[in-house]
């Protein structure tokens, strides 16, 4: 018996070493298919991390939903891959000199998925719906400033707003849907995007098919795209390797290394601001010194190294470095390395000489945030803060943390659109998105000034002031803008990275 056992063990050991020997053999660089000829047709399966919160484009709030709805819906204007606006449902627009009147000209021949042409009535209906003019409920807060939507002629719509705002045009990416279809949008969403809705199964995924009469000639290439919900990042990796999904856009650095060679692994900066969000309303985080101590305790350099392979951009405040005109480099305030002595000193000044217990709630479907959390726990330990991770499901996170604000701290990401105001907007005291309960009268005041300012230089000055305020108050411990790393089958091409959080499938094609 003992001999038998020994031989089993030996066998196990041998397998271990031989398997170990295999590793590192396949280290070809990932192929770039952009030079190969695109082929029309085919279908792909894209792995996504979370369920859809609403199929109604005006009611969807989660970034993970919007990135998919981007394929189905379009606004008067839409984002392009360079972070600029391009005309979509509108073929042209004019903004009056005082910034109060927007005149949109509709594109000729543009059609909804149901075959009906897009009319001025549809545009009027959609804009009135989101701005609350229809039934009093504002669905997109930025557009609540719309005072009236007037149809000038069959192809022209005039929008009058209450106050001028140079960033407002970016909000007209709001989806245009057929007149009166709002009630049915949840069951049968209809838009003008490159793909039309086919089916949706909760917890499973959503299927879209090619919109044959899409206004951009030649797009999309694919006949069908399935977005498949895969809650566990580990399962996603196995699914990729087992070829049951073709594209997975949310890889961690080590996962990317695992897939190098057998997949095309592409990477670009994301539009996500990742932070250790601190609930400013709960003990002991309501003390500014405690929050500062946490900022000092973090070693962002090594987080970057462990989780992003050194490819992330470290940030000190809520702004993307890619928004160059507005970004202020604030990494020096608390440093990118760890400073546990300073943190301890601040903690004892705050009355916590022996540290305290901190609970970090993390949505477990995000491997990136989970791994960051593991590193953060270790770093906080050095400053005497005894942190522990509470991994929760995405829905729990959304209701408890984000909407219920019932948490102590959380690691996750917030996304940005193409405007700097979008990120900073949520830290106003009364903002419904202010899930960290940040309170600063000064901040609110400066934000209002920034919003109403028409001079871009002045606006940039206010925005930099806001970033500085956030950092000085240590409203939250900002960490990084993670890279977005995708894995895609070798025979696919045309994937485009956007500076906004979308998965554009219209340009993806097979090469053979």
């Amino acid at each position, binding site marked *: 018996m003992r001999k038998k056992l020994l031989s089993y063990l030996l066998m196990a050991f041998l397998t271990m070493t031989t398997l170990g020997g295999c*590793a590192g053999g396949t280290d070809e660089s990932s192929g770039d298919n952009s030079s190969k000829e695109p082929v029309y047709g085919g279908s792909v399966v894209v792995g996504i991390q979370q369920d859809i919160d609403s199929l109604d484009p005006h009611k969807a709030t989660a970034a993970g939903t919007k990135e998919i709805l981007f394929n189905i819906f379009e606004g008067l204007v839409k984002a392009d891959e360079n972070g600029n606006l391009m005309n979509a449902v509108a073929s042209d627009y004019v903004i009056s000199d005082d910034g109060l009147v927007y005149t949109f000209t509709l594109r000729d021949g543009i059609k909804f998925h149901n075959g009906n042409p897009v009319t001025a009535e549809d545009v009027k209906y959609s804009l009135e719906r989101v701005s609350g003019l229809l039934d009093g409920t504002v669905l997109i807060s930025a557009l609540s400033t719309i005072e009236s939507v007037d149809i000038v002629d069959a192809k022209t719509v005039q929008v009058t707003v209450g106050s001028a705002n140079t960033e407002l045009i970016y909000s007209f990416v709001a989806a245009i849907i057929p007149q009166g279809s709002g009630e049915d949008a949840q069951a049968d969403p209809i838009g003008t995007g490159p793909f039309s809705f086919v089916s949706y199964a909760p917890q499973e995924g959503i299927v879209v098919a090619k919109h044959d009469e899409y206004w951009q000639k030649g797009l999309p290439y694919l006949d069908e795209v399935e977005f498949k919900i895969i809650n566990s990042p*580990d399962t996603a990796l196995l699914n990729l390797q087992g070829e049951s999904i073709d594209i997975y856009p949310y890889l961690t650095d080590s996962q990317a290394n*695992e897939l190098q060679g057998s997949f095309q692994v592409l990477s670009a900066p994301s539009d996500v601001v990742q932070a250790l969000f601190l609930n400013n309303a709960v003990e002991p985080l309501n003390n500014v010194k405690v929050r500062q101590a946490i900022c000092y305790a973090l070693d962002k350099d*090594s987080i970057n190294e462990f989780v992003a392979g050194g490819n992330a951009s470290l940030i000190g405040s809520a702004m993307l470095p890619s928004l160059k005109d507005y970004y202020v480099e604030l990494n020096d305030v608390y440093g990118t390395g760890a400073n546990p002595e300073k943190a301890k000193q601040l903690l004892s000044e705050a009355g916590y000489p022996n540290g305290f217990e901190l609970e970090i709630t993390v949505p477990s479907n995000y491997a990136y945030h989970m791994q960051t959390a593991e590193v953060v*726990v270790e770093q906080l330990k050095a400053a005497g803060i005894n942190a522990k991770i*509470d*991994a*929760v499901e995405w829905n729990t996170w959304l209701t408890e943390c984000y909407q219920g604000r019932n948490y102590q701290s959380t690691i996750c990401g917030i996304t940005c659109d193409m405007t700097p105001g979008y990120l900073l907007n949520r830290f106003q005291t009364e903002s419904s998105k202010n899930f960290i309960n940040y309170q600063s009268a000064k901040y609110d005041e400066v934000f209002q000034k920034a919003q109403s300012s028409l001079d871009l230089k002045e606006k940039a000055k206010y925005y930099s002031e806001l970033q500085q305020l956030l950092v000085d108050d240590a409203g939250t411990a900002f960490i990084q803008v993670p890279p977005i790393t995708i894995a895609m089958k070798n025979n696919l091409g045309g994937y485009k990275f956007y500076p906004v959080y979308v998965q554009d499938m219209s340009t993806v094609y097979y090469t053979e």
Partner: protein
Amino acid sequence: MKEFIKEFLKNFKGNKYFWAGLAMTGLVLILAVVGYFWTPYSTTQMSAAERFDAPSLRHLFGTDNFGRDIFSRVMKGVGTTVFISVLVVLCSGAAGIIIGALTGYFGGIVDEIVMRVTDAINGFPSILLGLVMITLLGSGSHNLIVSLAIVFTPSYVRIVRSEFIKLRDADYIKRARLMGVGHLRILFVHILPNIFSVFWASVMIGFNNAILAESGMSYLGIGVQPPDASLGKMLSDAQGYLITAPWYALAPGLAIVWIVLGFSLLSEGIRRLQE
């Protein structure tokens, strides 16, 4: 008497199962106890320079994606798993004895109700039931112990109850009752010692099941929370690196096999000794 001891020792000597099991379980216990006080490296200390180091003399089982020493984490993980499993077996065993004894001895409508409840609990797969419990109670090792204890209690209740039913009408119990012995004393002094061998066998099996259940729950991310080490969580973290760092998955996997195998051998050995 001398003959008996000689016989007993001979049984011991010839009992390969017992010795193999004892050696394997002993090693596990030593690792667990030592791991509680000391590990070669810190189980949570990360090192960017040593990520995914293959097994070597420096790191016996290699390192993981954070550059943590896997051998140290396995030591800690074994301790955690064994500790949780022992507590689960203790709690569910105790609950099983009390509930099983009372229902089996007294019978009646309460017995009927309790039995239907245990039927209901048994109707679910144990992992699924554990998942439901965790969702209700919240994750973390305390809640894991509670929920697994609840999941495992019915099996002990059934075994204890059936033994009590068998013995409650035995002549010696009837006599004791006639002599005016109290119910409690009959339950725990007169009957309980006589069902020990049957109960022991079920505890042995239950312990192995508890280890597998704990690993399963941690694997699903609802047991021990990171960065604390647990075998199940290590396995689930490691599955993404099966090709590039197979040692990461093999170490905790083999550890689980080792514990379960060792304990199975040990219980088989003890069973043979009893015969």
